[in-house]
Each structure stands twice: as C-alpha cells, then as structure tokens.
C-alpha cells in the first residue's frame, strides 16, 4: 500500500471503527446519556457551542504551550547541570524525584492561593511543574552517558567544553530530548486542565467541562473530552514534526 495513503487511512479507519462500536454499544444497551453519551449526541453540542469550543481550546492550548516552553528551558538547564556535574546530579536527583512525586492536584489550591487572581500565570505554572521532570532527566542522562571517545575525539584537537557541547553533546542528546518532550507535552496538557478544573476561573476547556457538569449537560462533558483528545493529538504530532526536522537522523529506515 502507498505509504502516505496508509498513514492517513489507517488512523481514520480505526477512529471510525471505534466510534461506530461506541455508538452501537450505547444504542444496544439503551444507555441514557448521563450514563454514557454516544458520539451522535456530541455533534449537536459542537454545533451549538462551536464559538465557545474555539475560544476555550485556544485558552487551553496557548497556556499549555507556554508551560511546556518553560519546562523545556528550565528542564534543559537543570538537565545540563546534572549531566555535566556528578556532584549536582547526586544532590539534585532526590529533590527532583520528591518534587515529581507530589500529586500536582494538591499543588493547585496552594498555587491558586499563592498568586491569587493570576489565573493564566498559575495555569502555566502547573503545566510547567508537571512536565519539566522528564525533560530534565532525559537531558541529564543523555549528557552523562556520552561515550568518552566522543568527547576525546574533539578534546584531543584542543576543542573547548563549549565546542564539545554544541558539536557533539547537544545533537547527540536530541533523540532523548524529543522522546521526553513527547511525554512532557501530554503531561503539560494534563497540568493545564487540572488547574482549569480544580481551581475554576472561567477559562479553558476545563471551564467548559465544568459548565457541562453544573448544568447537567453530560454530552457536553464528553464533547469536551473529545476536544481535549484532539488538541493533545495536534500538540503531540507537532512535536513529532519538530523531531523529524531536528533529530530525523536517529530514525532508521525500515529496510
């Protein structure tokens, strides 16, 4: 089969199949929409609230990307420090693990109190906090496992550490970095929604979800879940697209 055709056709078929099964299962079991909304229940919601869906999606999206951007900068910095200094790695690791182990849902009310009314800032902060860990860890592992020969090949020519970083350490770490970014992008998304739902402030898809709950519009809640999934897919494949550009060399051809 043609490669591009398969890449479009396969997911379309699978999504259609799952939706059809879902529709059938709801119809067959005769479930009321508060127990389980069917895909056909969702379409009227999208038509009725299309402007809200667009606005709220944008609010969720830009705050997620901002949080992720912060996570990339901060995570890479921490990863570099841990990757190059064993002392820093041993000192920072337990702190990072401990920080990562704190459920972020418990941090939301604390942050909301700490910066009262700064809704965008708070949301970005949670998205950042939840997503920087995998980036820091992968960058530090990528740098600290750099084979000494790679370093020696440049060092023996008198290259400085900065040169070695730009020419070898950084590009060599990119595949690990993008692997972590794929995890982080989904996490950041969870972080944004956590803030929107646990500390409602009238913004983002989390707010739309909340309205559905309050007004007992269950299909709307399901419709929001689908919108979230769609946004997540878009963000994830954007990262894949970047990966192709910057670390495409790491991908082996199948033959």
């Amino acid at each position: 089969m043609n490669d591009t055709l398969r890449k479009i056709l396969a997911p379309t078929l699978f999504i259609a199949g799952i939706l059809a099964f879902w529709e059938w299962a709801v119809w067959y079991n005769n479930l009321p929409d508060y127990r389980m909304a069917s895909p056909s229940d969702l379409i009227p919601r999208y038509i009725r609230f299309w402007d809200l869906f667009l606005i709220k999606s944008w609010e969720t999206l830009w705050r997620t990307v901002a949080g992720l951007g912060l996570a990339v900068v901060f995570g890479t910095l921490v990863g570099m420090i841990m990757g190059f200094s064993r002392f820093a790695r041993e000192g920072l690791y337990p702190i990072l693990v401990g920080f990562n182990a704190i459920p972020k849902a418990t941090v939301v009310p604390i942050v909301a109190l700490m910066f009262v009314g700064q809704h965008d800032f708070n949301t970005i902060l949670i998205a950042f906090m939840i997503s920087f860990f995998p980036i820091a860890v992968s960058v530090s592992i990528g740098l600290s496992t750099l084979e000494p020969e790679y370093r020696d090949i440049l060092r023996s020519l008198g290259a400085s550490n900065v040169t070695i970083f730009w020419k070898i350490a950084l590009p060599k770490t990119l595949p690990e970095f993008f692997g972590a970014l794929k995890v982080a992008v989904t996490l950041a998304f969870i972080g944004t929604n956590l803030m929107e739902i646990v500390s409602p402030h009238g913004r983002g898809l989390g707010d739309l979800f909340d309205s559905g709950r309050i007004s007992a519009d269950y299909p709307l809640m399901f419709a929001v879940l689908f919108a979230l999934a769609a946004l997540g897919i878009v963000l994830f494949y954007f990262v894949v697209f970047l990966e192709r550009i910057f670390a495409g060399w790491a991908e082996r051809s199948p033959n």
Partner: protein
Amino acid sequence: MTTSSHMIELRDVTHAYRTKAGPLPVLDRLSIQIPENSFCAVVGPSGCGKSTLTRLVSGLMRPDQGEVWLHSKLVTSPRPTVGMAFQNPVLLEWRSILENVLLPMEIVKSPMSKAEATERAHQLLDLVGLTGFADKRPSELSGGMRQRASLCRSIIHKPDVLILDEPFGALDAFTREDLWCTMHDLREAEPFTCLLITHDLRESVFLADQVVVMSGRPAHAQHVMNVDLSGKRTLEDLYSKNAVDMLAILRHQIQVAQGRTVDTPAEARA
C-alpha cells in the same frame, strides 16, 4: 636533556589511577622513542595500560611522573597536530560521512580553505575505498566502512602524529587485513608518525617499523623489536620465515609479560 630529537618520546613515564582500593599503578618508568615518520606498534597483555599510553601521548592526560615529548615539545595539553582513531569509530550519526571527515577542520586552525579541505576529504575517501559514500549517513555503512571513514577523519587536518587505539580490533579478519593494506596506502600517500595500540601480533608485524612489548601492570617497555621486512609489504610477507620468527619472539614476550613463563631468549628455547 631538555628536548627530544624524536617525533614521539616517552621518558620514564610513571602513572597510577586513583581507585577506591588505593592507587593502581599502571605505568612504571615506561620509555619509548619513535622517530619521525616511523610506525610504532605497542602490544601487551590486557589491562597493561596501553590505552593510558594513548591518552598521555595525545595530552588528554598528564603522567604522574616522567615526560612525554611530541615534536620536541613537552606535552602538557591536547595538540591539534595529533590525529586519533579508536576501536569505536565514533562517527556522528547526524552528519554525513563527508561532514564527519571534515569535523577536525572545524576545530583546528589550518591553512587549508574549506574547498581545499573538502577536496582533500574526497581524495582520502577515494584512497580508503569509500568513493561515492560521502553523502551517506554513518548508519548506512558497515563496521569496516565506518572505521575507514574514521581513519580519514583522523588525518584530514594533516597531523604529524597519528594515534590509533585498536582501530581494527572489532572487525572481522578479512576486513582487518584489508584495512592494514589501506594503512600502508595512506602512509605511502603522505608520511606520518604513527603510534598503534593493538592486541594483534600479526597486525603489529605487518604495519610497524618497531614493535614495543609492554610488561604486565605496572608496565614498562619489556621488549623492543625492529621489524625489517624489505620493500612494500604484502600480506604474503606475514608467512615468510622472517615474519614467523618475529611473531614467535613476540608471542614469547607476551607470555613473559603475562607472567606465564620466565624470560629466556627465543633462540635458547629452540
């Protein structure tokens, strides 16, 4: 003496690694002299400090005691007039073969222009049999081909000293013999002084003008053998009486170094 007339000279080099169990002496008053444009192979039992030797000569490390001289200068730090290749070809996967070969040119100040360097890279790739592979990625090449590319990279900047740390160790026997011949071609094309670390006695006899056998740890130069195979060497020369005798002596010296036998001259054993 405050200078050295040799291209590479190690003078009473003593070195120890600091480990948890205390200092681990690896080299003990090791002295080696390598004249300009000559090829020296260093063999010895495993863990006798052969790789330490390459790091000392390349200036990646400084010895605890003793001196390392390169081109009449005391080695205190890495020098761009050195080329290195390892058992692992360490090609950068994100660069083409040509860009890999040209890597040293981005570090070393050279009178060569970019165009000249590229021209030279293509010539070297032709010489080692990689014509047409300049734009390929390392992942598309076999182990032997990568090692050929790594050799080109180690001499692209016209170093006067080439340090090879078991570059053919991980290759199959036939590829290895091919690369030995490639080494002769490279030396014929442009002379350089070479220090080769190897486990392979046949390799040392086929390639080197001088073979140094290191003793067990802490190592000194236990035996130095001059290899005189006349004219251009071919693989058949390895089966000549002369070469077989030399291999027997080296084999015996290695066993002495391993502590498996006492040092009696090879002639006396016969």
